């Protein structure tokens, strides 16, 4: 009986450790995956000289070569409503955390990134 308890306890601890491990593992962004996910982005950010019309007219920012961590932070801020642009908020709301790191990797030009959530 004692050994069964031991086995059960060990198994539980290992499972719990595994669960905790999975939660804290940082997401890895893949530029190849990001390239498959950017249809919503390229319509504005992929055209040289494209300008947003509302709420003000100005050039949509270039993203190619931008730091991945900055792109990811910006997308998270749009997703949380901390940045104001209405279209970006709407688009970011549709993105998962994995999408965000993948897009950040793609636009930064690095093949793979690890970004904190």
């Amino acid at each position: 009986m004692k050994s069964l308890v031991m086995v059960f306890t060990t198994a539980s601890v290992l499972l719990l450790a595994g669960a905790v491990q999975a939660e804290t593992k940082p997401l890895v962004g893949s530029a190849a995956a990001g390239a498959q996910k950017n249809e919503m982005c390229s319509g504005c950010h992929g055209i040289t000289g494209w300008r947003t019309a509302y709420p003000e007219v100005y050039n949509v920012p270039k993203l190619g070569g931008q730091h991945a961590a900055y792109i990811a932070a910006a997308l998270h801020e749009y997703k949380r409503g901390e940045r104001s642009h209405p279209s970006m908020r709407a688009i970011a709301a549709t993105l998962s955390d994995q999408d965000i790191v993948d897009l950040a990797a793609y636009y930064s030009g690095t093949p793979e990134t690890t970004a904190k959530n």
Partner: protein
Amino acid sequence: MSIKSLTPSTLAIAACILLAFSGVAAAADLKAGEAKVKQICQACHGLDGNTPIAENPTLGGQYPDYLAKALRDYKSGLRKNPVMAGMAGTLSAQDIENVAAYYAAQPAVLVTRH
């Protein structure tokens, strides 16, 4: 003075003078922009807009009107960032045009990626 005495060159000069007083924001001054960047922006964004700090955006070659809009939004609080609010708060409207033009004129690190 008859209308015939208004030569094209006279009219051109008159037009230029009128434009100068038309209230359009003065063209960006790259030298003043560089001075301001060295004072305020360089520490985090680099002199050419390249920064090794991953969380700070690269600015070199970005569209100047986008950079100016971002600075105005930081200054007004529409875009909330305690660090940038402090930085942009010290800039006048003309300073904003100048630094935006300066970074936009740097060798393009940023490109349009389709």
